[in-house]
């Protein structure tokens, strides 16, 4: 019984660490929990269908045929932006291969010098000067890299994302450098669509009530009540979110930085990435170059598997990228570990360091704890300081 190795070609997405799901042979990339995303789709498609079914025939005839046409265009734009945000790579940084990780570790050891036994080594931080501001780059124990400025590790997707904004359960993906503008256009166009449907619902009800009376109108077009309810509740959160992100874009800040208060002005700390000009900031974020994905999802690689087993795709691969750090996280506390936790270092080594730091707002999913409400309350908190 000799073990015969079969070499087969697999796509690189099958071997990527992290908790993403991939569809269409690597073309589509999303987070694992997609429930709220399906709810978003259902609400948008459902409400628009009701609008086209109940209101549009009456309004097209009695007011203008342009109304359903414009609604259709807006609806298509909203769907395109939503799908683009949800399905694209937000800007995930690939993890360091073993040689790079070792090289970085050696640099860290060299920088730290000799640490006497019993003392904890200094935290893994690199200081860089950006536009006359000192920015600290943190070391990511999961990805084994020093995170570039503005990058953050999303604990839901288990990836470091460049220019990390937040993890949005409504779109079922992280929002980062590559898909932020699509996310913003999605919220903006959704606000417009919601206002549009709400307005024309009211117009329709008023116009029809003049002819048939209010109660009869509601009986003839029961969909209207549902639409008005959905639009009314959606309006506040979506328009608020759009306003919040417009504010962030004009200052060239991310939600993550805003929540952490990185550039809140304490200790004369200013945002080094801002051009100090609202127009320039908006242009950079919305009309800047389209960054390519650095994750080669559809590239081919060789995988050796023994012929005797029916090996699932997650078995041994030639590209040995570490999956998690649960067993390999060094027993080195970081700067956020308080001194009294030192005895339980063995326990904390099993968890990802500083989970609160790395967690994006509202990773859990009841609709009430949506990122936008957390972000808005944080603005109120900031103002109260």
């Amino acid at each position, binding site marked *: 019984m000799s073990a015969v190795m079969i070499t087969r070609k697999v796509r690189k997405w099958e071997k990527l660490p992290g908790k993403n799901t991939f569809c269409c042979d690597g073309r589509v990339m999303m987070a694992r929990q997609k429930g709220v995303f399906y709810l978003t789709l259902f609400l948008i498609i459902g409400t628009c269908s009701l609008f086209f079914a109940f209101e549009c025939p009456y309004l097209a005839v009695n007011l203008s045929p342009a109304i359903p046409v414009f609604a259709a265009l807006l609806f*298509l*734009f909203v769907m*395109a*932006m939503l799908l*683009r945000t949800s399905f694209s790579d937000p800007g995930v*940084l*690939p993890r*360091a*291969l073993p*040689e*790079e990780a070792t*090289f*970085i570790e050696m640099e860290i050891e060299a920088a730290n010098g000799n640490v006497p036994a019993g003392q904890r080594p200094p935290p893994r931080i690199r200081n*860089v*000067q*950006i*536009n006359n501001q000192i*920015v600290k*780059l943190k070391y990511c124990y999961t990805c084994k*890299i020093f995170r*570039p*400025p*503005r990058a953050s590790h999303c604990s839901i997707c288990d990836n470091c994302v*460049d*220019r990390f904004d937040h993890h949005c359960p409504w779109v079922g993906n992280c929002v980062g450098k590559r898909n932020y503008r*699509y996310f913003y*256009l999605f919220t903006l166009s959704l606000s417009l669509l919601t206002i549009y449907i709400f307005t024309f619902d009211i117009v329709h009800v008023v116009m029809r009530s003049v002819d048939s009376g209010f109660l009869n109108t509601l009986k003839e077009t029961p969909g209207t009540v549902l639409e008005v309810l959905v639009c009314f509740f959606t309006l506040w959160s979506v328009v608020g979110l759009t306003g919040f992100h417009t504010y962030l874009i004009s200052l060239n800040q991310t939600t993550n930085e805003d929540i952490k208060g990185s550039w809140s002005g304490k200790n004369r700390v200013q945002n*080094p*990435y801002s051009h100090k000009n609202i127009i320039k900031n908006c*242009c*950079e974020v*919305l*009309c*800047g*170059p*389209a*960054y*390519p994905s*650095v*994750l*080669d999802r559809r590239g081919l690689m060789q995988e050796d598997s023994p012929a005797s087993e029916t090996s699932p795709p997650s078995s041994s691969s030639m590209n040995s990228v570490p999956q998690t750090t649960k067993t390999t996280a060094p027993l080195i506390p970081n700067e956020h570990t308080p001194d009294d936790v030192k005895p339980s270092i063995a326990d904390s080594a099993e968890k990802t360091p500083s989970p609160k730091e790395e967690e994006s707002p509202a990773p859990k999913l009841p609709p009430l704890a949506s990122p936008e409400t957390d972000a808005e309350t944080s603005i109120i908190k900031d103002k109260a300081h």
Partner: protein
Amino acid sequence: MAETHSLQDMRQQAAIAAKVFIQRDYTNGTVCQFQTKFPSELETRIDKQQFEETVRTLNNLYAEAEKLGSQSYLEGCLACLTAYTIFLCMETHYEKVLKKIAKYIQEQNDKIYAPRGLLLTDPIERGLRVIEITIFEDRSLGR
């Protein structure tokens, strides 16, 4: 056999002595730039000027890719008007420059680095984080 300098042969026959990683230079912000500091491991293999010239050219190419100018704004606005469907058929400016970069690195490897037993890896294969330089064992010195 030690005289063949083709990359395929290098990869298959030569043993890897070490790898050097040129890190990113963040002094101008998040734009993709690499440090031009000459690593000590390469002192015996290549000229400092040559190395700095390579990294500087790469930096200029990346700066061209990420430049915020009228071309990028035009591309952005046009794409937005078509709901970004235009990217299904058109290549972005960044992708065009990445192809130029890949060609440049191939050329540098063939002309300058492979004859010296070195190999540059395109940074895009390392997530635009580092320029990986593989140092192969110097067989010409003999054992």
